[in-house]
C-alpha cells in the first residue's frame, strides 16, 4: 500500500534530517538531551527531598482529622515514664492504604513525645514473628510475679472456704445430735431437712475449695500461667451462692418457726452464730477474690494471643499499671470479601488508632482501676443453680464489653440481688482496697466501684419482683451517695398507671424517665403498623465531659425511654463546656443531656406499647397504630441519656454522680459491637460502629471521677450528615445524572451555533 500524501512528510522528514546531520552533531544533541532530562529529574528528586524535610501539611478538615487532637498531644506531653508502643500487624492484611494510615498515626504519636518509642513488627516476615515471640515471652516473664501473687490470694481464699466447710459441717452434726425428739418421718422432718441443707452447703464449700485448685491448674495457652481472673470470678460466684444458702439456714435458726423449737435454744443460738461466722468468712473470701484487679497481662491476653495488636508497655515498678494492648480488630476490623478472603477494613483507621492509643496511655497513667458492678436481680426460679446459670449467661453476654473496658483498666463484675440477701450485703463498699499479698498489695490506691443497674422486663410477677429488688438497690445506692449508672426500661405497671418501682426509687433525682411510654417509630411495613422494636440511633452531645470525647457519634438504642430533666441544667449557650468539672456555684443537682434524638412526625412516646408488643403483628395485620394526642406524647426532641451531679458527696471520689440511660440492655454485644461491611465505592470498607460500648466506658470513667475519660479524636467531631429524605435525594440524583451531561452537550451545541 502506498503511503498517503498526508503522512509522507512525517515519515521522510526525520530521515532527511538525519542524513544531513553530521554524526558529531547528533552526539552532542543527544548528550544535551540526556543532560536536560537527567537535570530535570534530579531537580525533581531534590524538590521531593526538600518537601520531605519541610514536612509541611495543611489539614483542611474541620475536625483536624490528620493531626493529633489537642487532648492527645497533652496526654503524650504529660508522660512521666518511658513508653514503648509495638505495632504488631500483618502489612499484607492491612493493605497499602491501611499501612500508610497506621504509619501516619504512629509517626504523629512518636513525634509528640520523646518518652514514646514506636516500633512496627511485620508478622508477615519470619524475623517479625520471631521478634514478637521474644517480646511476648519477655512480657510474660515480667508480669508473672503479679499473677503468682494472685494465685496465693485465691489459694488462701480457698483455704478459708475449706475451713468454713469444716465449721459448717460440725454445726450440722451438732444440730442433728441436739434435737430433743426423734425425727418425724417424711417431709415433716424440717430440722432434718435444714441439717441436710447445711451439710450440702459444707459439701459445696469443700468442692468450691477443690474447684479453686482445679481452676488454678488450668493455664492459658498464650502465657502458661494460671487464669486467675477466671478463677476469681468462679470463686466469687460459687462463694456467693453457698453464702446465700448458709445465710438462709442461719436465718431459720433465728426465726420463730415452730419446727425449730425441737432444738434447744442454746444449741440453736450457738449454731446460728457458727453459721453466721461461716457465712462472713465465705463472704470475705468472695470479696477478696472479687477485689483482685485483672493483671495487665490478662488484659492484653487476647491481643497477645492473636498476634495482631498495638501493645503499649510502660516502664515502671512491677504491680503498677504497665501493659495495655489494643487488638488490631478494634482499629481495623476484618471482614469477609465476596471472594471468601478476609481483609481489614481501614476506614477511619488513623483516628481510631490515635483515640485508642491515647486511651491506653491514660489507663496506664492512672493507678485507679475502676470496678463496674453489673447489678442484676434474681430472674430464675430462685434456686442457687439458677443464680449460677444466670451469672454465667450474663458473663458470656458481657464478654465483648468486658474486653473493651479492659483496655481502659476497668474490670467488670456481676452482683446478683436475691430475696435471701439484703442488698446492702450484695453491694460492695464504695471503694475497694485491692486484696492480695506481695507486690499486688503494695499499691495504696483503692478501686472506685461503679454500680450499673439495668431495668428488667416487668410483664410478669417475677419481673416486678426483680424490679423491686433493683429499686431497693438503687435507693440504697442513692442514699449512700454511691456512683451509679441506671438504665430504666419500659414498665408494665407504669403502662397500667401504677408506679414503676425503679422509677419511684429514682424520684430524688432531677430526671424522670417516662417508663410508661417508650419511644417507637412508625415505619412503613406491609402490615400497615409500626415496629414495636424501634431501633433508634440518637446522637451524643458535646455538652458534658462524660461524652465530649464521643460527641457526634451515634448509639443504638432499643426500647428507648425519653427522660425529663427537671433540675438545674447547664447554660445552653456553652456547647462543649464541661459543666461537671467546673467549680459548683450551688449544691443543687445539675442534670445534663448526654444523648439526644430529634423529633419527627413518625416518632412519639407510645402509651400503648405493651399491647403492640404482646400482639403478634401477623395476628392483627389491620392494627394500624396512630398517634393518640390524648395519651401519647410527641416532642421536638428527646433526651435519652443524662448525667446528674448531685454535689452532695466529696468530689474526689465522684460518689455523687449518677447517669441515666433510657434504653434496654444497650451494652450487650449485639448493640455494642461494630458491624463492618465492604464498600466497593469508597476506600474499601464502612464500619457501622455504634458508640454504645464507648458510651458505657465513658460513663463508668466519669462516674469514677475522671472528667476526661476518652481522648478527643477525629471521631469526636460532629460530622455533617445528609439529612434530605430519600425521595428528595432520588430527585437530586436523577436531576444531576440527566442535567449535567445534557447541559454540557447543550452548551456545546450553543457554542457551535454561535460560532456559525
Amino acid at each position, binding site marked *: 500500500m502506498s503511503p498517503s500524501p498526508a503522512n509522507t512528510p512525517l515519515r521522510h522528514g526525520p530521515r532527511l534530517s538525519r542524513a544531513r546531520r553530521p554524526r558529531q552533531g547528533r552526539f552532542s544533541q543527544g548528550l544535551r538531551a540526556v543532560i536536560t532530562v537527567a537535570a530535570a529529574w534530579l531537580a525533581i528528586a531534590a524538590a521531593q527531598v526538600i518537601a520531605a524535610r519541610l514536612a509541611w501539611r495543611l489539614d483542611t478538615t474541620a475536625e483536624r482529622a490528620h493531626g493529633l487532637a489537642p487532648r492527645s498531644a497533652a496526654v503524650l506531653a504529660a508522660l512521666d515514664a518511658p513508653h514503648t508502643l509495638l505495632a504488631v500487624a500483618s502489612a499484607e492484611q492491612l493493605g497499602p492504604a491501611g499501612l500508610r494510615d497506621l504509619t501516619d498515626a504512629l509517626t504523629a504519636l512518636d513525634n509528640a513525645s520523646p518518652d514514646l518509642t514506636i516500633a512496627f513488627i511485620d508478622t508477615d516476615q519470619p524475623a517479625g514473628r520471631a521478634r514478637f515471640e521474644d517480646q511476648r515471652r519477655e512480657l510474660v516473664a515480667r508480669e508473672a510475679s503479679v499473677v503468682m501473687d494472685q494465685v496465693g490470694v485465691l489459694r488462701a481464699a480457698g483455704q478459708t472456704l475449706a475451713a468454713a466447710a469444716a465449721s459448717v459441717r460440725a454445726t450440722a452434726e451438732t444440730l442433728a445430735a441436739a434435737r430433743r425428739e426423734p425425727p418425724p418421718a417424711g417431709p415433716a422432718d424440717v430440722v432434718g431437712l435444714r441439717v441436710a441443707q447445711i451439710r450440702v452447703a459444707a459439701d459445696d464449700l469443700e468442692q468450691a475449695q477443690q474447684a479453686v485448685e482445679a481452676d488454678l491448674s488450668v493455664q492459658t495457652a498464650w502465657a502458661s500461667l494460671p487464669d486467675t481472673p477466671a478463677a476469681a470470678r468462679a470463686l466469687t460466684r460459687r462463694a456467693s451462692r453457698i453464702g446465700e444458702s448458709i445465710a438462709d439456714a442461719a436465718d431459720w435458726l433465728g426465726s420463730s418457726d415452730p419446727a425449730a423449737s425441737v432444738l434447744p435454744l442454746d444449741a440453736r443460738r450457738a449454731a446460728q452464730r457458727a453459721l453466721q461466722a461461716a457465712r462472713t468468712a465465705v463472704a470475705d473470701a468472695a470479696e477478696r477474690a472479687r477485689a483482685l484487679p485483672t493483671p495487665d497481662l490478662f488484659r492484653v491476653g487476647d491481643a497477645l494471643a492473636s498476634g495482631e495488636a498495638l501493645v503499649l508497655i510502660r516502664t515502671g515498678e512491677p504491680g503498677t499499671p504497665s501493659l495495655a494492648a489494643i487488638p488490631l480488630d478494634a482499629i481495623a476490623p476484618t471482614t469477609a470479601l465476596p471472594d471468601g478472603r478476609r481483609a481489614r477494613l481501614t476506614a477511619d483507621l488513623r483516628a481510631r488508632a490515635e483515640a485508642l492509643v491515647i486511651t491506653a496511655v491514660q489507663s496506664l497513667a492512672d493507678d485507679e482501676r475502676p470496678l463496674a458492678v453489673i447489678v442484676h436481680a434474681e430472674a430464675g426460679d430462685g434456686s442457687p443453680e439458677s443464680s449460677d446459670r444466670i451469672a454465667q449467661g450474663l458473663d458470656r453476654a458481657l464478654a465483648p464489653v468486658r474486653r473493651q473496658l479492659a483496655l481502659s483498666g476497668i474490670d467488670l463484675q456481676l452482683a446478683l440481688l436475691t430475696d435471701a440477701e439484703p442488698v446492702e450485703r450484695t453491694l460492695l463498699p464504695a471503694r475497694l482496697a485491692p486484696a492480695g499479698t506481695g507486690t499486688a498489695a503494695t499499691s495504696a490506691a483503692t478501686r472506685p466501684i461503679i454500680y450499673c443497674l439495668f431495668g428488667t422486663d416487668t410483664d410478669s410477677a417475677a419481673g416486678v419482683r426483680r424490679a423491686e429488688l433493683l429499686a431497693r438497690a438503687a435507693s440504697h445506692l442513692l442514699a449512700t451517695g454511691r456512683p451509679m449508672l441506671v438504665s430504666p426500661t419500659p414498665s408494665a405497671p407504669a403502662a397500667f398507671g401504677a408506679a414503676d418501682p425503679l422509677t419511684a426509687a429514682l424520684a430524688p433525682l432531677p430526671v424522670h424517665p417516662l417508663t410508661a411510654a417508650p419511644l417507637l417509630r412508625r415505619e412503613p411495613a406491609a402490615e400497615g403498623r409500626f415496629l414495636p422494636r424501634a431501633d433508634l440511633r440518637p446522637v451524643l452531645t458535646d455538652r458534658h465531659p462524660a461524652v465530649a470525647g464521643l460527641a457526634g457519634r451515634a448509639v443504638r438504642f432499643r426500647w428507648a425511654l425519653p427522660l425529663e430533666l427537671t433540675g438545674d441544667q447547664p447554660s445552653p449557650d456553652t456547647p462543649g463546656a464541661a459543666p461537671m468539672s467546673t467549680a459548683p456555684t450551688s449544691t443543687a443537682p445539675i442534670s445534663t443531656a448526654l444523648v439526644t434524638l430529634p423529633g419527627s412526625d413518625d416518632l412519639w412516646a407510645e402509651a400503648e406499647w405493651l399491647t403492640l408488643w404482646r400482639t403478634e403483628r401477623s395476628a392483627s395485620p389491620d392494627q394500624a397504630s396512630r398517634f393518640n394526642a390524648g395519651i401519647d406524647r410527641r416532642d421536638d426532641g428527646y433526651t435519652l441519656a443524662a448525667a446528674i451531679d448531685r454535689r452532695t458527696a466529696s468530689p474526689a471520689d465522684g460518689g455523687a454522680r449518677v447517669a441515666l440511660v433510657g434504653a434496654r440492655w444497650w451494652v450487650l454485644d449485639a448493640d455494642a459491637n461494630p458491624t463492618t461491611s465492604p464498600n466497593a465505592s*469508597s476506600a474499601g470498607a464502612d464500619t457501622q460502629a455504634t458508640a454504645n460500648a464507648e458510651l458505657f466506658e465513658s460513663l463508668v470513667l466519669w462516674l469514677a471521677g475522671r472528667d476526661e475519660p476518652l481522648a478527643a479524636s477525629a471521631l469526636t467531631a460532629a460530622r455533617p450528615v445528609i439529612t434530605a429524605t430519600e425521595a428528595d*435525594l432520588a430527585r437530586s440524583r436523577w436531576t444531576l445524572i440527566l442535567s449535567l451531561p445534557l447541559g454540557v452537550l447543550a452548551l456545546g451545541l450553543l457554542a457551535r451555533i454561535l460560532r456559525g
Partner: protein
Amino acid sequence: MTALVPLWLIARRELLAMFRIPLGWVVIALFALLAAVAFSISTLRPGEPASMRAFFGLAGGLLVVVCPAISMRLVSEELRTGSAELLTTAPVGDATVIWGKYLGACLFLLAMLAPTLALVLSLILSSTPAPALLPIASGYLSLVLGGMLYLAVGLLASVLTHSQTLAYLAALLTLVGAQLGVIAAARVLPAEIASALLWSAVPLRISTLASGLIDLRDVVFFLGISSGLVVLAAVLHESRRWA
C-alpha cells in the same frame, strides 16, 4: 513574560481545538454523566456523612480512563496529519510547543471538572450542617494534580507514536499497570520496603489529598513527576529533528 506568550498562544489554540470538535464536548458530557452516577451511588445517600471523599476516589479512577483520551491526540494527531512539520518551522522551540499543548490539556481538564461543582452544590443543599468547603477544595486539588500526572503520561505516549489509539492504550496500560503493580508489590514486600514503594502509589496520594490533607510532598510529587514527564516528552519530540 514574553517567553510565556507563545506558550499561552499554543495552550489557547489547543484548548479551543478541543472545543471546536464535538469530541471535546462529548468527553466532558461523558465525564459529567459518570461523575454524577458515581456521586449518586457513593455519596448521596440518606444518613451518610456529607463528604465527597468517596466521590473523589471514584473520580480519580475515572480520570485514569479519560485523561489518556484527552492527551492521545496532542502530538499523535500532529504527527499523523503532518502538521508537526509545520510546527517545527514556527518561531518557537519544541519544548514550548509541548508545554503549550500540555497546558492546553490541563485547562481542558479544568473545564471537564467544572460541571462537577454542581455536585458540591447538591451536597450542600442535602446536608446539615453544610459540609466544610476546604476539604472539598482539597479533593478537587487531588483530581487536578492526579489528572495532570495522567495527562503527562498520555502526552509522553502521544509523542512516541503516530497512532492516537496506540497512544491511548499505551497511556492507559501504563497508568493501570503502574498503579496495580505498585500496590501488588507493596502487599508482598516487607513493611519497610513496602512503605518506600508506596511513595510512588498515585491512588494513595490522591486519597490523602481527597481526605483533606494537603501534604507538600504529595503536591511536589505530582507536579514534579508531571514536569519530568513533560520534559522527557519535549526532549523526545525534539529528538525527531536530529535523531
